[in-house]
Every structure is written in structure tokens, then in C-alpha cells.
């Protein structure tokens, strides 16, 4: 149960501040999610917070490789 950040990420920090589990960390070339910490926000929030705030389409995927913010909204 963990989400992942893709190469579309623009390193805007928005997800870092809203993650309830401190699961997101800075790395190069882009931020990453620690899959040991990410709970997909279950128990904390109704929707994954990183995906709710991320301004970039296709920057966050689930374990099946589905985009949480697919292109074209």
C-alpha cells in the first residue's frame, strides 16, 4: 500500500507538507515516497493528500501504475 512519484514531478514541495506520515522526501531528480511509511493516507484522510494537492498531472501513481491525477483532468 504505497503511492509513488513519477518523473513528471516538478519538485514543488506541496505534497511534502501535507503528508500525514512524513513519507515524502527530497531526492534527485525529484521527490520520492518512502513505501515503508506511506499508507495511502488510510485512517488519516479520505483521499491521498499528496495527490489531492499535487499540481502536476501524472506525477503520482498507485501500485498498479494508475495515475491519481490523469492527464486532461
Amino acid at each position, binding site marked *: 500500500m504505497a503511492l509513488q512519484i513519477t518523473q513528471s514531478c*516538478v*519538485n*514543488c*514541495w*506541496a505534497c*511534502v*507538507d*501535507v503528508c500525514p506520515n512524513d513519507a515524502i522526501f527530497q531526492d534527485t531528480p525529484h521527490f520520492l515516497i518512502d513505501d515503508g511509511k506511506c499508507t495511502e493516507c488510510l485512517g488519516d*484522510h*479520505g*483521499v491521498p*493528500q499528496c*495527490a*489531492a*494537492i499535487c*499540481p*502536476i498531472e501524472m506525477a503520482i501513481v498507485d501500485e498498479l501504475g494508475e495515475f491519481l491525477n490523469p492527464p486532461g*483532468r
Partner: protein
Amino acid sequence: MELPVISNTPSESEGGGCSSSGCGTAPDALGHLPDHIRAKVQDHPCYSEEAHHYFARMHVAVAPACNIQCNYCNRKYDCSNESRPGVVSELLTPDQAIKKVLAVAAEIPQMTVLGIAGPGDPLANPGRTFETFEQLSARAPDIKLCVSTNGLSLPQYVDEIAKHNIDHVTITINCVDPEVGAKIYPWIYWENKRIFGIEGAKILIEQQQKGLQMLTDRGILVKVNSVLIPGVNDEHLKEVSKIVKAKGAFLHNVMPLIAEPEHGTYYGIMEQPEPTPEMLQDLQDACAGDMAMMRHCRQCRADAVGLLGEDRGDEFTLDKIDVMDVDYEAAMVRRKEVHDSIIEQLEAKRGNAKPKVEDLGIPAESRPVLMAVAGKNGVVAEHFGHAKEFLIYEASPAGVRFISHRKTELYCGGMDSCGDGDVVDAGATESLLDRNIRILEGCEVVLCSKIGYEPWAKLEAAGIAPNGEHAMEPIEDAVLAVYKEIAATGKLLPAVDSKKVA
């Protein structure tokens, strides 16, 4: 003629970033403001066009995250509310930002204003933003602080804002009607959810309006920015203007939408039209009445340093700051001296009335004429093909006033070639030249120091009279002289010939 050299000024900043002299605005552009507000803004480079020749501002980019999506923004770049799209600022930690501010303040004593404007929404980054403000209020109390926001989180941080030395807040308000808002903001991040469309826009609008009221109730100055989006909020902005003024915003600044497809914004990709310079000007006139205060606004980048229109950021990159050893106590003493001397000059200037046109025998019923000037440091100095922007002035029987900047794209690559009419790359040159002539729409004269044969002919064909006879003269004098010449032909009087000059 302008810009007396300020002692201790690093030489690059002499003449500053603005190319217009006193920008031609009547000295009482701030005259309508209540005294306490006027006192606060008259020495502020962003609000007083007079002061912007003397005082400098800087931005630090400590706030990367944003909590809404605007259709004119691509988050690969800085917040488009505050800088031109396509710009990327160097992100700093609060500690790095403090270091940079102190270094700049010591080096450029004219720097009096520090803003946090991005690269995202400062209030979506409360930790980084307020830590920077907190440290600065403690360590550099002689610096005024300001912050800008999209307004979504504003109500919850008004108390925090009031605690620091922050006397100006800029809120970008593009609409007061959620249906209009839904066309500008696809979604917001609110209470741990993404909220789309009208519902999201409604919350954003409520928060903006509430925050605005809370700030003005506490006596904090609020400027409202709006982005003019043709066909979306153009007419609507007149209502926005009324409402924000009624709530106590001291200034409403209307900026043009920038929607280049290469920036990858929604509007850019959807080919949403940008406003023409004329549209912008009409709306600014219709909305505000106090736009004279902001006509010099250059939509600075989130890490801008220096006088408005110039950027000395390169002198203060992280590696350079690292080796600078700043004694801020000593710097503060020197800063005070420099500030006092600038204020003295400004006061002296404020006492000087500008020459009246009536004294020069221009009949009061003459119509106004718009002129574009390729100017630099207050004089007609630029070759037509080298001008990065034209300064638009209006001459009328009431006097000469500065209206706006219109940016060009350089079509002339070589330094001398086009002065003689040589055209290096005919294809590319052609279209850029045409484009530049198009931005001069509405102007009847263009003043420059020199102009090639080809642009001359094209300008004439477009009904704009090129004029190279006032090279190196102060802009306002030159504009007035040309206005007088036109007036002398009788062409400005209503009964006679209403055709364009040229």
C-alpha cells in the same frame, strides 16, 4: 537630467531599472490617498512610481508549494500571479534567505522592501514564510516586509501576519463570482480534499474576501492584483474593483494575462487570447482611477533584487553570499544615511511643480495624443530596433503623463546593421518588426534616437510618425515639443481635420 547620483551607490544601479524619467505621472498620483496610507506608500518602490527610481526591493523565493490551480500557471515555473510565466527562481531555505537579504541590504542600501511572493503561494508554505519574516523582523528591523497570496489560506494567517513587520499584503483576486471563478481555477486544495469547479471557486472567493476585510480591519495595507483574461473576467473586473475598494484595498492593480503556448499553461495550450495593450489600458482606466500608481509595475520574478525593472540577483547567488561577511549593525547606520538623503531628494522633488502645457499656448480643446518612446534613463535614447520596451506617454492640454510600458521583441540583432536598413535575416526580421509595430497600436508618434529605413516606412504605412529628432532629450520635454509641433499644424482641434498625423 534625473537621478542624482546617490553617494555610496554601487555604480551599476545608477540610473536604475526604469527607463522613464519620473515616469511622467503627475506628482499627485498618490494624492487621493488618506494621509496615513500615503505616508506608508510614498517611499515604497512598488507603489510610488517616484520612489521606484530611488528605493529598491527584493524578493526571496522560500515558498514553493501552492494550494490552488490557476489556468494561467504551470507549476514547473514560478507563481504567475507574481512573476511572468516561464520564470524559475532559485529556491532558498529560510536561513539562506536571511543571509541573502542581509547581504543585499548591506550592499544596496536603497533596498528597503523585502517580499515573499513565491515561487508558489507564500501562505501555503506557512512554516518557511513566517520563519523568514520572524528572523528578519528581529535582525533587520529597517526593512519593510510584504507578502502576496492567492488568498485561500489568508483568514487563518491574518493574526500571524499582523505580528510581524508586514505592512503590505497583495491578494490576487480575479473574480467575485464563482461561475467566473470556475473558468479560471479548475480546483483548490481545501480541508484535505481537492475541490473542483464552481464549488472550489466559491470557497476561494469567500476566503479572499474574508481575508481582505480582516486585514484592512487591522490597518494592514492591502493591494489587490487581478489578471485580465479577455472573455473571462474583463467586464467582471469592474465589479471586482468596486468591491475590493469598498472593503478597503488601497490599490487595485490590473495585469495582463500572459498565455504563451510554450509555457504549457492551460490557457496557453487552449490559445486563450491575451489582452491587447489597448484593452488593458481601457480596463485600467475604467477600474481604478489610481492605476497611475502601478503603471510602472514590471511583474517581478520571485527572486528579483534591485530597483524595479532591473535584476541584480546574479550578484547574490548562494556561493557568493556564502563568502560575504556582513556586519549588519554597521550596514544599518549607512542605510539610514542613504535613506535620509533619498527622502530629502524626494521631498524636494515633490515641492517642484511640473511645467503646465497651457503656458505653452496649446488650445484647451486639443485632443490628446499617445506617443511611444524608446527611452532609457529618462531620455530618448534608444535605437528603434534596440528598444526592449516602449514607454507610452499621453500628451494633452493638461500635460504629459506616463501611461504604460509595452514590451517588444528585439528584431535587430546587430548593433549597427539595421541603422542603415540592412536586413540580415529577412524572414524573421519581418515578422518581429510587424509585431512590434502592432504593439504600438493607438500611438501616433514614436520617438527614438535612430531608426532604420525599413521600419520607418512601415511605421508611416501604419499611420505612426517616426521621429528621431529628439535624441538624448529628456522624454517629457521631447513629448511636449512634438505635441506642440502637431498642435501648431491645427490637426488636434476637433473642427479641423481629425485624421491622424504622419
